């Protein structure tokens, strides 16, 4: 029996008067990858940003419904605490204007995770995080260089390392490979597969093949509605809804 990590119940999201998510209910299993597919403007990003309350910063955003993390209501949690448990990787790589080392060390320092630990501890965190993001070998000799000088694929993996450094429970990926070449994409996918042993992962992707490759469960969003959610193997072989079938076979308008 797999454990349920997050539970979304009747979630409705709005920007001002416009509803962008309608009555979404689903659950996310622990240590699995949930892929979310769907055409653009289906509300996938809004869904992810709601799960770690980044959308609380968006003007005009409001919502109804509940989201639970380990059975606790995330909307009554401390926002910062929630975000350190539910990390998020954006579509565009977003390194901070700091060195490679300081990018990874940034959050542990700010969140006071180093208190009472020996001085060397931060070096350890940085190294393991970069290793787990399969970036260590490429950057170990230039940790002091600015992260802004790295390639897009490296920056994206650096952002993964930055999240791993605070050891969250859930990681949200929002089209993490949309700007990357196939080789960088393969590396990021490999990293994700390795990470699901320790973390629960939600992957929004515009690449249907990617969802079928890495997802344990796949959900299909269309115009703010959850059309179908099922084990990836089932959804891609025998989708129950016509819209799902049209979308995954590329026959979608």
């Amino acid at each position, binding site marked *: 029996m797999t454990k349920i990590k997050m539970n979304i119940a009747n979630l409705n999201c709005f920007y001002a008067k416009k509803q962008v998510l309608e009555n979404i209910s689903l659950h996310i299993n622990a240590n699995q990858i949930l892929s979310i597919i769907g055409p653009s403007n289906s509300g996938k990003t809004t869904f992810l940003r709601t799960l*770690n309350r980044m959308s609380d*910063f968006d003007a005009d955003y409001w919502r109804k419904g509940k989201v639970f993390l380990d059975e606790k209501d995330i909307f009554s949690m401390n926002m*910062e605490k929630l*975000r350190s448990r539910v*990390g998020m990787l954006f579509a565009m790589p977003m390194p901070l*204007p700091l060195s490679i080392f300081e990018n990874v060390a*940034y*959050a542990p320092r*700010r969140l006071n995770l180093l208190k009472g630990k020996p001085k060397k501890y931060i070096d350890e965190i940085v190294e393991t995080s970069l290793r787990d993001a399969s970036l260590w070998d490429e950057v170990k000799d230039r940790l002091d260089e600015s992260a*802004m000088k790295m390639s897009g694929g490296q920056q994206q993996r650096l952002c993964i390392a930055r999240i791993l450094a605070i050891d969250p429970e859930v990681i949200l990926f929002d089209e993490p490979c949309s700007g990357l070449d196939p080789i960088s994409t393969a590396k990021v996918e490999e990293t994700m597969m390795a990470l699901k042993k320790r973390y629960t992962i939600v992957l929004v992707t515009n690449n249907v093949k990617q969802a079928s490759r890495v997802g344990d469960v796949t959900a299909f969003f269309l115009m703010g509605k959850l059309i179908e959610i099922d084990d990836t193997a089932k959804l891609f072989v025998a989708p129950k809804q016509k819209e799902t079938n049209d979308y995954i076979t590329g026959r979608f308008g």
Partner: protein
Amino acid sequence: MKKLSPKLSQKLAVSLLTVAMIITLIPVSAIIFIIVKNGISAISWEFLFSMPTQGMRAGGIFPAIVGTIAIVSCSIATALPIGVCAAIYLNEYARDNLLTRIIKLAIVNLAGIPSVVYGLFGLGIFVMFLGFGVSIIAGALTLAIMELPVIITTARSALSNVPNSFREASLALGVSRWQTIRHIVLPNALPGILTGAILSIARVAGETAPILFTAAAFYTPNLPHSVFDQVMALPYHLFIISTQIPNMPKNIIFGTALVLLVMVLSMSLIAIIARIIFRKRRKW
């Protein structure tokens, strides 16, 4: 009428623009030339670092230089922290509603108030109501109010030039808003903020009207001991020696103007150089 050939009209436009540029450059260079030519003979170690003598017709302008530096540094020490905090509030925290729009409009308008009005305001509030008397602190606070709009406006634009992705990246890691501002936004906005501060100093250092009723003395035999003392100040001193004192040697008047000019221009120069250096070092 025959149409001009493109080549000819291009030439005409370029020469017109060149002429316009020369016309704007002439008065500036003329001012600098005249002041330097007439004033350079007065400049000496003694002129810069000694007290005036013989009813200010001889000796130096040391107390006026000290006074100006004292007033201006006290004013920036007050205005910079307040202005930066206000800019942070407006740019990072305030929601875009009617109240914040009114505040922003008010700040822009504050910059358009004539400086003599600031002077009268300072006289009423700091000199009389708060009882500071005519003093460095009253003058500095008056100038600080004058600097605020410039500092707030430049600091706000420096803050909003920091890409939003930096804030999102930091916030998404569970770092609080204030820590994000403190560790990511502010360091990256600092060059712009400091440039604005230096430019605002350059702007107020040469002002006479705001300190006329609040800080400046005609003549003081001693240097100030505390911020509650009156001081001589360069712009006001220049005004006095060029209008109130008969038989004033011309080179002292122009020498004083030269010192003031160099002080103000070097401030602007520092700001420009700082901006170039920071822009080169910028990491995004």
